[in-house]
């Protein structure tokens, strides 16, 4: 059954939901994008190699429709701005697809949340979320993005959006684009010479004579 059609039928109440859901689940082909397959570039012990091989052999978790929806949502949460690129530019959708394979506890909340979102959109706009206009998408997101002012009937959507926000932040700020954006300056050989003087001054702090005498210091000229 065509996804659009089945959703439309659900929306109009023409079919029972469970049957339609079952139909949809087998409908879309799994995405098979080899270039996006995760690569482990760090020490792995033999048990991990085995576990991760099995994990990757399962292939992508989300179907094309779900992944497209995730991509739209990620880029609403973290769009391109004057400082850095967007979540999708940072590979966040692929990260989310991997992490749900690795952490199965996220699977039902995300998959179910995506469906919840589509049904909300279908009721309002007669289209699934990803095919709505940008204005419609934002209108819906505004109903679930603010936990303290969201209407009670949108509470499941709030939970879903909180999870999406957290996973998007995890994926984005651990990417090269995100690390640069957040300004993390470490993870490289250096000589720790203490808090920079202008920062000490900003906070009206100073090292004691004892600290200056006993701590390791490096001549910046050297």
């Amino acid at each position: 059954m065509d996804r659009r059609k089945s959703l439309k039928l659900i929306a109009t109440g023409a079919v029972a939901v469970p049957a339609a859901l079952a139909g949809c689940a087998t409908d879309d082909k799994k995405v098979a994008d080899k270039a996006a397959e995760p690569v482990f570039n760090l020490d792995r012990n033999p048990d991990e190699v085995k576990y991760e091989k099995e994990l990757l052999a399962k292939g992508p978790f989300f179907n094309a429709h779900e992944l497209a929806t995730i991509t739209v949502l990620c880029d609403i949460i973290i769009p391109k701005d004057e400082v850095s690129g967007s979540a999708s530019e940072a590979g966040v959708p692929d990260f989310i697809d991997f992490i749900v394979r690795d952490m199965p506890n996220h699977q039902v909340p995300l998959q179910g949340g995506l469906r919840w979102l589509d049904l909300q959109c279908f009721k309002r706009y007669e289209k699934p979320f990803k095919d709505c206009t940008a204005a419609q998408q934002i209108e819906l997101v505004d109903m679930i993005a603010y936990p303290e002012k969201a209407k009670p009937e949108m509470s499941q959507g709030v939970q879903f959006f909180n999870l999406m926000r957290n996973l998007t932040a995890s994926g984005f700020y651990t990417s090269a684009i995100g690390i640069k954006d957040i300004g993390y300056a470490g993870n490289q050989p250096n000589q720790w010479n203490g808090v920079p003087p202008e920062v000490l001054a900003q906070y009206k702090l100073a090292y004691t004579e004892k600290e200056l005498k006993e701590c390791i210091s490096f001549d910046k000229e050297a």
Partner: protein
Amino acid sequence: MGDLQVKKQPKKYDAVIVGSGAGGGMAAYTLAKAGLNVCIIEAGFMYDPQKNITQLKNPWDSPRRGASTKLRPFGDFDACYGGWNVDGEPFTKEAGTDWMWWRARMLGGRTNHWGRISLRFGPKDFKRKSIDGLGDDWPIGYEDVKPYYDRVDKMIGIFGTNEGLENDPDGFFLPPPRPRLHELMIKNGATQAGVKVIPSRLSILTKPIENDAGRGACFFCAQCSRNCSIAKADFSSPNVLIYPAMKTGKVEVISNAMAREVLTNKEGLATGVSFVSKNDGMEYQVEGRVVILAASACESARLLLNSKSDRHPNGLANSSNVVGKYLHDSTGAALGGVLPQLFDRKRYNEDGVGGMHVYSPWWLDNKKLDFPRGYHIEYWGGMSQPAYGFAGSIEKMNGKYLVKGKQKEAGGYGASLKEDYRFFYGASVGMAGRGEAIPIASNYCTIDPNVVDRYGIPVLKFNVKWTEHEIKQAKHMKETFKEVMHNMGAIITWGGDDNESNNWGLSKPGEIIHEAGTVRMGNDPKTSALNKWSQAHDCKNLFCVDGGQFVSQADKNITWTILALSMRACEYIVEEMKKQNL
């Protein structure tokens, strides 16, 4: 296994060591340097920090961005294989009791990822019963161990400062790193609360020292938990002890080898160790003039209890019936939050060393308190490398505090949200206590009569409960931390709501991963398993050099004392061999 055979290694070693962490590594190093032939049996995988690298990787080098798995519970970059649960190696607990048991399964064990917090015990720590009437005194005192602490300081390297403190003795310290920004704020807040703050004492080389391991100085990446593959600047057993010891040609390592029993002869002396190889499933025996257990306090106790014979019907070295008893872990409690003055802070590299640059040794007098013994405080915070979980639950932050002067609605998305992430980054701060529990006979591990592991080895059953002493300590920790946080102007976001219903947030027994006491030493063979040389009363060529031998573990992480005592025991072994006593 229809045709079960036991393969005997033809070579007889001077020493067979079970385990390769701090105790086993130091034993192998000391004995090999003295010219003895050594065989190390390690239950886990072979591991070489020079080849098995997670240091200086970027978050995206792990597709799960450093998140933990069952196989690496402290995260994907952490350098310890094993964890809270090991497949095929169960353990059990008595109903109504609790025990968390971290088992490393790799060469070097927990030393590959530990916190490098290297605290010598003080004079009081060996004589606690004489002071407060609880537990027992050690059969040795600080003066017995001091020369070995001194040599460990110089040989392995440690930074810190000589403060002249009575029970936190001076040592041979390299210069410590300057405090980070949040650590200066902690120092002020803690000092106001009467809590002493001094430079930490970590086994990290802030300057190169003379060594035979090709070690260099720390380059401040904060990643000691990943093991210093690049400079070998922190202490781990493989980098600093085992691979250098192997260079003598005197050390062989058998990895993936699960020890089954210590073998003994008719006279009751140890002759070697039997083990099952995880590689081929075969049974093996390896012989040695002495057998040295360094498998971790609980695994060493398990091995002894499983080594029954006509001469040792209650398990080896257990005529006293104390093996497995007096099991204790450090107490722990923690809380954390944010420092609003660090919102929107200037960016710079503040990685520093792996772990805190300052800490608080125990500072109070128990006569004025309602609990015995003390705790030290560890601190953290600042601008760390983002990983999985980064800035989680920002919806609980960005509606609560003004962001760049603006009141926002909690949650949100878009460019405004990106601004929030930048604004709050690097403002976290936290602290944890690590305290001394009282070792008691009723806290123990023993052999479960009904359960074996996948190799057919009977497993441990734990029976450990905290007492009022430890619970009151946790309460005191929380009260202290709240005061320090308040003085700093910090806002507590977690760990601040504990009360008596949850033991004031006291960690579970075992959770702090400082297991000790199960094979304790003492002068009286009726109440101890080992003598003051870490040598079994009942079996003179059997030694235990891990945390098992501890009578009590102070409010000091135990690794530095394990290293000193292992060196001491092994030099005794060499001398006794020279005298033909072993």
